[in-house]
């Protein structure tokens, strides 16, 4: 699956996008984030404050318990500060 990162989360992780294979048994956004945290301290730092994580799946905002599959496109970012 393709994952896109924005703003502070992008800076922590060090890339604006990456492609990963969703491990068997992981089928929610929160499961994906827990999986990503195992990839390194940069991910841990990015996702340290779970209340500051927002997610979109296929360009629609979703909650952390949203179901996902390997075909989905994920975007992870902090709370928005536009306007």
């Amino acid at each position: 699956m393709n994952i896109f990162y924005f703003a502070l989360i992008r800076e922590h992780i060090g890339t604006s996008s990456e492609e990963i294979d969703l491990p068997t048994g992981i089928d929610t956004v929160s499961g994906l984030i827990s999986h990503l945290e195992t990839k390194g301290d940069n991910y841990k730092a990015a996702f340290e404050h779970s209340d500051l994580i927002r997610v979109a799946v296929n360009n629609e905002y979703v909650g952390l318990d949203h179901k996902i599959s390997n075909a989905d496109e994920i975007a992870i970012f902090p709370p928005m500060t536009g306007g």
Partner: protein
Amino acid sequence: MRISVQAEDFDIAAEIKNLRANRTDIGAIATFTGLVRDIHGGKTIKKMTLEHFPAMAEKELAKIGDQAKKRWPLEGLTIIHRYGALYPGDNIVLVITTSHHREAAFDAAEFIMDWLKTDAPFWKKEQTAEGNHWVSAKAEDDAKKDRWN
């Protein structure tokens, strides 16, 4: 409804003219322009960089606009949001609403601004003398949005 996500500046007079066209049935035009301020949170701002999510930005602005159109009898609506490098005094965002009546125009413009703050996929990074930092989302912005429910 005109929605634009753009790096370049906007021209409020041209945008109003575009909404008015040659119509004579518009009684009220409300506009809101948001600008980069030179001071924020007590710090002097040198520059503001607005990051956005291109695949979602216009779509989300259109959604917010659609919600406003459902709630109020609008004749016309324009939402423009800039991204990229901006400096104090620069325009960030423009909302224009036209309606038969002033209350609808005012309320819809304020509603759109409140929702933009929390639902449009943009992130502000400020550059100050002490360094760079991402602007934190404000709890009060959520509260402002929630008052429309």
